[in-house]
């Protein structure tokens, strides 16, 4: 089966070439996205089969000479291949309709399959060369997709998404390269099997761990390496945004899990603490910035940062349990993390599709220009609502099931001997609770501003429902969100082989329970039944409606009441910015938010205005100085561009001498 799955990678490349040739005709879109859909279905099927199958390997005569191209398919790669298949298939389906409105199909069609090819290769790779090759293919093709709409991007003074993304992607590739270099050791065994056998010293292990955390974390969007994510993800066409947020961040999570849980020797305790600290901060900072965001797609990107934080908290707990020899706890924590990764792929793809549909219908991304879309786009509005409830971790949808599992892992409270871990568990529990509550606030605001109320602009007033392909893709993901929420046991059981391979233990079988209740440890300790909760809500709601409608006298439509002063102008309704004002006041300390109101004096005829200034706690103290330093050095180095040929020759000679000397001393 690994052969067929490996063949998917070149097949994606072929589709990309087809995309170059046929970009100008309608059939090109159908061919590329239809082909991607079929290939993604293959990935999904193969990935699911690999979850329960044996480990398969294959060595291809490509790659570095004498090393070859090692590919491997096990439960972990099977799970992530299934995620690519699911997310990529959904994005292809959505794009079949959504792609119609693309002004420059030539900028999107060739890179979309290449992007999928890169991600697939990362998952299948079993040596450092192929892994990094796939990683860079994924980065570069997605960079090209981010650049597709560069000409209609933001103000020139703002950071350019493509540029920042390219820098961070290069940085992440570099750190991973160094991590693999450390892992391979002096012998230079690039195959992952060599690294598994190669027993590195504690210093090397710690170094490789930190490099892997930085490399994979910056791709996933871990604070403080997340700055590119809210710039780049929204800049791409919406189906690509869905793919980047829903799937590419998961490939980065895969990279982290593969290196840290599989290739590396057991790490010291502070590594787990590091992951827990980074995860907790990421979750809260991501969602706080999402609450403050006006741009719908950027809001979703910040929410991705939050969810990556939740996933990394789960992984950090799994590491902490594993290094203390508590395998059952590690199994619960890693299952919770991977379950959340799966859920995030579902609901974030759905939400980005919804944002894309709104963008197509209104041409707007700013929520202050939307409103009332529930009347104009009822089906999109319904599916988007499902996505909002799922991402806000509300029962009975899937986001709640995985967050519930994460909380259960926090509550295990084994007697961890290390103080750092002992303190980080409850603190992360509190941070996750805060993030979950703020996510609900964030999505009430997003949904309320975009879909509810009255239209704020003519564009929103004249929006029309999107095509059937897009609606099918959204509906499919909404249904999956519900199914994963009411049958969480099925997902947990499917993840058992992954947890077995990574932690040496698995969670108890969940589907054996006749009522399909999930109980991570024992029913007396904690249990949750999504199906019963869902059916109870549905039944009691229907019964109540039926009963109330028997006694009630029907409804009458009238103008809004609004305490007797309804205002006709749509500007008078609560806007997204006014909605977040209380939260801004409470949590604004972190962002040093300053609102300044410019009120004209009586008699003056200019309009009053309010300006809001926000300080980014990561960009301003961390990145701005680096950027300043780089440009300062670049200016100094500028002198080197205007030298004579003799000086250049002497530079070359000097460099050569230094290199030879170093080599001689090294030997």
């Amino acid at each position, binding site marked *: 089966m690994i052969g067929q799955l490996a063949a998917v990678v070149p097949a994606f490349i072929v589709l990309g070439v087809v995309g170059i040739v046929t970009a100008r005709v309608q059939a090109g879109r159908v061919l590329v996205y239809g082909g991607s859909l079929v290939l993604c279905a293959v990935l999904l099927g193969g990935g699911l089969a690999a979850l329960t199958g044996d480990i398969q390997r294959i060595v291809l005569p490509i790659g570095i000479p004498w090393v070859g191209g090692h590919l491997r398919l096990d439960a972990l790669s099977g799970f992530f291949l299934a995620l690519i298949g699911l997310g990529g298939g959904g994005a292809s389906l959505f794009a079949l309709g959504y792609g119609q409105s693309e002004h420059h199909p030539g900028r999107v069609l060739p890179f979309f399959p290449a992007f999928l090819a890169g991600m697939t290769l990362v998952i299948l790779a079993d040596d450092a060369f192929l892994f990094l090759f796939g990683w860079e293919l994924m980065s570069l093709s997605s960079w090209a997709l981010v650049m597709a709409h560069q000409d209609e991007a933001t103000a020139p003074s703002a950071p350019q998404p493509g540029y920042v993304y390219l820098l961070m992607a290069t940085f992440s590739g570099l750190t991973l390269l160094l991590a693999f270099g450390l892992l391979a050791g002096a012998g230079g065994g690039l195959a992952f099997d060599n690294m598994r056998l190669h027993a590195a010293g504690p210093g090397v292990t710690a170094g490789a761990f930190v490099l892997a955390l930085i490399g994979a974390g910056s791709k996933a969007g871990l604070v403080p390496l997340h700055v590119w994510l809210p710039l780049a993800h929204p800049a791409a066409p919406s189906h690509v945004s869905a793919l980047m947020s829903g799937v590419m961040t998961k490939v980065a999570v895969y990279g982290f899990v593969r290196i840290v849980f599989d290739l590396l020797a057991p790490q010291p305790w502070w590594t787990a603490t590091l992951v827990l600290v980074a995860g907790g901060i990421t979750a809260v900072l991501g969602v706080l910035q999402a609450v403050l965001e006006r741009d719908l797609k950027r809001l979703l990107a910040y929410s991705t940062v939050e969810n990556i934080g939740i996933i990394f908290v789960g992984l950090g707990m799994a590491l902490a349990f594993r290094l203390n020899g508590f395998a059952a706890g590690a199994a619960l924590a890693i299952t919770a993390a991977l379950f959340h990764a799966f859920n995030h792929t579902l609901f974030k793809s759905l939400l980005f599709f919804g944002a894309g549909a709104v963008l197509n219908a209104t041409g707007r991304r700013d929520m202050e220009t939307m409103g*009332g879309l*529930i*009347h104009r786009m009822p089906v999109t509005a319904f599916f988007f609502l499902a996505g909002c409830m799922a991402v806000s*971790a*509300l*029962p009975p949808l899937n986001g709640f099931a995985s967050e*519930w599992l994460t*909380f259960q892992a926090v509550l295990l409270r084994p007697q961890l001997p290390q103080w750092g871990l002992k*303190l980080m*568990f*409850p*603190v992360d529990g*509190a941070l996750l*609770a*805060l993030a*979950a*509550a*703020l996510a*609900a606030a964030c*999505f*009430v*605001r997003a949904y*309320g*501003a975009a879909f*509810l*109320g009255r239209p704020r602009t003519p564009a929103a007033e004249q929006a029309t429902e999107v095509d059937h392909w897009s609606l099918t893709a959204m509906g499919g993901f909404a249904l999956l969100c519900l199914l994963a929420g009411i049958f969480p046991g099925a997902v947990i059981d499917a993840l058992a082989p992954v947890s077995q391979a990574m932690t040496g233990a698995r969670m108890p079988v969940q589907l054996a329970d006749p*009522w399909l*209740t999930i109980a991570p440890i024992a*029913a*007396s*300790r*904690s*249990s*949750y*039944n999504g199906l019963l*909760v869902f059916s*109870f*809500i*549905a039944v*009691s*709601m229907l019964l*109540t409606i039926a009963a*109330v*409608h028997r006694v*009630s*006298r029907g*409804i*009458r439509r*009238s103008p*809004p*009441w*609004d*305490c007797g002063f309804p205002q006709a102008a749509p500007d008078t309704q*609560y806007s997204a910015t*006014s*909605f977040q004002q*209380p*939260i801004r*006041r*409470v949590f604004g300390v972190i962002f040093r938010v300053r609102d300044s109101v410019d009120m004209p004096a009586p008699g003056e005829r200019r309009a009053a205005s309010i300006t809001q200034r926000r300080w980014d706690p990561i960009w301003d103290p961390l990145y701005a100085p680096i950027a300043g330093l780089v440009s300062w050095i670049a200016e100094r180095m500028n002198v080197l561009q205007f030298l004579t040929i003799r000086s250049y020759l002497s530079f070359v000679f000097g460099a050569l001498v230094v290199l030879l000397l170093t080599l001689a001393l090294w030997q």
Partner: protein
Amino acid sequence: MKGADVLAMLHALLAQGVQMTVILLLAPLLTGYVRKVKARLQRRRGPDLVQPYRDLRRLLGKEAVIADNASWLFRVAPYFVFAATWVAAALIPTFAANLMFSWSGDLIAITALLGSARFALALAGMDIGTAFGGIGASREVMIASIAEPAMLMIVFSVALIAGSTQLSTVAEYMLSGAAGIRVSLAMALIALLVVAIAENGRVPVDNPATHLELTMVHEAMVLEYSGRHLAMIEWAASLKLMLYISMIACIFIPIGLAGDTNSPLGNAVGVTSWIAKMAVLGAALGVAETAVAKMRVFRVPNYLGAALMLGLLGVLLLFVSQGM
């Protein structure tokens, strides 16, 4: 399945059904009782105990007037809020623990179910596009963004002490007296009282009796509702008050709670003690509301932040030391 099994299952189903019906039917009475206590403390005669039932009947019988531009969400939300709150209330051991469906959701699920209800109501507040709905929804989610983590911290404290997030198991553990007197439990109790007041929109966070006041939260959010929709929302609010008071009772004063529903005597003791606890705690709420003044809306985060910190401190203590 044997005959005895069927009988046992029917019995369990009946007990669960009785619990759900009783909590639903008694909820407005508790609201009326708290109002009566407050009125008497303020030297007013106050409305009858059964006035909330009359209000509900009147609202249900009336025509519902809704705005021209209200969407389906506006019409569905009250029923969803009611159903989610009712299901959450059904998971609380009122007179007996270990009811048939008590294991279908734990304390975290109860918190999240109430979160679902709030999510729907806040959205409904924004549906018409009026200033009042928006201001109420905005403040409601601001309060929730601190109250919900505080609630989860309380849940964590209790769960770490009892070794379970299942409310029935927690109640039995507390009943057994094994918990003893602990610092973290005291912190959790104080935090839970604070959160319960905020979640139910009582003084000093919100005032359920006011109308048209700029500091109000819940009443502003549901301003556009009338008739049967308003009845559902009012009933859900009563249910929520009942839920929180029952939860406090079953965690911190589980005396009299029946372990199962098999003995008639146990059930009788359970029901009597539950009603007594409701009466005492409801009166305490009335006294507390009379004694304090409503605070400004931006003082609320400090008030709730204290609860959050108390909860977190309790959890930290538990992680650091078994005995606290």
